[in-house]
């Protein structure tokens, strides 16, 4: 059984009487342990797909099964609990809370999950060790470099031991060298058996993942578009 089963999902917005289909009858299965990228130009609907799969949003139509549970009709409160326990997010702009220290930022998901303070500290330290930042716990995000901030964000995504990690343009705000280090971190996490979904518009980044899903105009494109810049230089690898 797949970890995520997306079946005939549509997301329709109404803007001034005009119907906008951000997602149009999309069906995807994602297995546990997969390293997958969702690729597509801006406005294609890839972010919408990530938001629906990541329980930030609910679909207009269709069903989503996450880890064996149907979530398309869940209440906002249930979705919050699922996000807290099963999903980790890494964003383009890091999205750390500026007033909190690195350690407090990493502890935050557990605060909302209701862990005791000693457990929070211990697990936050473990996660920070994993991203090699356990010597920066007392710093504020503004005192760190972009790459370090993104690693803190990854630690925060990992801290509740989620089933899936969504990374939305995780290198979009970093220089290419730092971005490469972050991607290596994702590869390492993938090797450790985590399910990672990378959302990007950049085929070069998508190239590191074994499986790619291309979204165009709210639909899954059957084939990877060869006209996307340089994608032919990164042939698809067979999914493991």
């Amino acid at each position: 059984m797949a970890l995520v089963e997306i079946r005939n999902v549509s997301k329709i917005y109404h803007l001034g009487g005009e119907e906008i289909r951000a997602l149009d009858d999309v069906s995807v299965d994602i297995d546990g342990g997969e390293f997958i990228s969702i690729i597509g130009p801006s406005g294609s609907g890839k972010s919408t797909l990530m938001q629906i799969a990541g329980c930030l949003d609910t679909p207009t139509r269709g069903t989503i099964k996450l880890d064996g549970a149907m979530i398309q009709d869940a209440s906002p409160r249930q979705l919050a609990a699922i996000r807290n326990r099963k999903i980790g997010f890494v964003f383009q702009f890091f999205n750390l809370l500026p007033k909190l220290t690195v350690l407090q930022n990493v502890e935050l998901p557990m605060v909302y999950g209701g862990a005791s303070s000693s457990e929070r500290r211990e697990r936050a330290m473990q996660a920070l060790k994993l991203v090699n930042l356990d010597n920066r716990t007392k710093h504020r995000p503004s005192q760190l470099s972009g790459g370090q901030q993104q690693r803190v964000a990854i630690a925060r995504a990992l801290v509740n031991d989620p089933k899936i990690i969504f990374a939305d343009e995780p290198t979009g705000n970093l220089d290419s060298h730092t971005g490469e280090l972050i991607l290596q971190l994702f590869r390492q996490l993938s090797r450790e058996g985590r399910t990672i979904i990378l959302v990007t518009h950049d085929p070069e980044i998508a190239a590191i993942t074994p499986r790619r899903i291309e979204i165009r105009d709210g639909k899954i494109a059957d084939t990877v578009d060869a006209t996307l810049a340089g994608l032919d230089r990164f042939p698809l690898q067979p999914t493991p």
Partner: protein
Amino acid sequence: MILLNSISIGLKDVWAHKLRSLLTMLGIILGVASLVAMAAIVKGMENGMKENMIAMGGANKVTVQDQDVPPEQEHLASEAPGCTIRDVLALRDSASMLELISPEMELDNAVVSRGENHMRPSECVGVWPAVLDMNLHTLEHGRFFTDLDEELASSVCVIGTAIRDELFGSPERTGREIIPIGETLLINEQPFTIVGMFTRYESEQEKKEREQARQARSEAKSEAGLARQRGWGRSGNWAFSRKNETIYIPLNTMWVRFRSATGTNGVPNPRLSNIDIRVVDVEQMEASLQQAKNVLMITHNGIEDFNFRSRESELETITRQIRNARLSGGIIAGIALLVGGIGIMNIMLASINERIREIGICKAIGASGPAVFAQILSEGIAISCIGALLGLGASFGLVKFLLLLSPSQNAPVITLTPMVLAVTFSAMVGIIAGIYPAIKAARLDPIQALRYE
């Protein structure tokens, strides 16, 4: 657990924005401080007024005094007898609802002197011993008049401490308490022997201040000389200082020594200045006064040339004044607290707009609506409660400052009730002010919040 964590996040946020939180609290601080200080001032006023009331002799004291005859009896005006000792005897025998009757014959423009020193007492009155009970006097030294003094019209007097202070020297000046029993003084140049002296009447506040001053003097042993008055006006409470300047002589002595030699056309004036009466039961005040009136109408040959002046109306005025002061002060402080609450709401709405993205992040990593609600609400409550506590501290300072500004006899008294009231009210204000921003934050859509720049 989750709730506790949310609250702790809220508190951390209050701490993280120290200056902003303090400015937000300012409204609450001032509101609470003014409420408590105002209540303390009113309480001080109330205490002072009550002490005055007691110093003047309780609520059940009624004064019978002369008045002009009513218009329909004007042709009888020359027949009007006025209050005389006959009335007193008649009341004593017939008005059963009175428990105490004290005739007073006052000497106007009396001057008491001794050697170089002289003064005008607040009252120089010929009295019966009933006056002690009636005006709540306490004799500390010597004795009061006996029947023999009254019968023989002895030249004896009982004085208040202020008269002693003026003629013999006050303890503050001489450093020791002079008890002038057996000494002689002159009332309008007639010699009188002092047989008794009252205790020193003063309000609780004066007593405290005097004791402090004495302590300070004995500790410092300085040559400070005369104690100076601070502030303006006469120091102390007028009712008490008046009472201290009293000089009493036997009623008969007053008649023989002063009144029988004066009067119009060589006829001495036998009128009493007034008659103080005390009713047995304050509840029966009206009936008692009616009875007294019936008796007096007989002795006055049906001419109504007297009236009753009771303290009830004064008491009512005092209560009304206090109530008004309390009400207006309460309203002002309430408005201040309300404005403080609006300030909190305003700042919190602004801070939420500023933090939409942060709230979005929290929601994306699993904060539920109720958790965000609790977090924002606890921020509001924390601000108002900390503000209220700071306000309580400030109120003590404010009261100290007011004391320094005017050392009035009615020292403010801080009481617990307004403190509790103020803190409860500001906590409520904090909750109400926090609810709307908290609902707004809790309802934020995480996607839009994350996208917000």
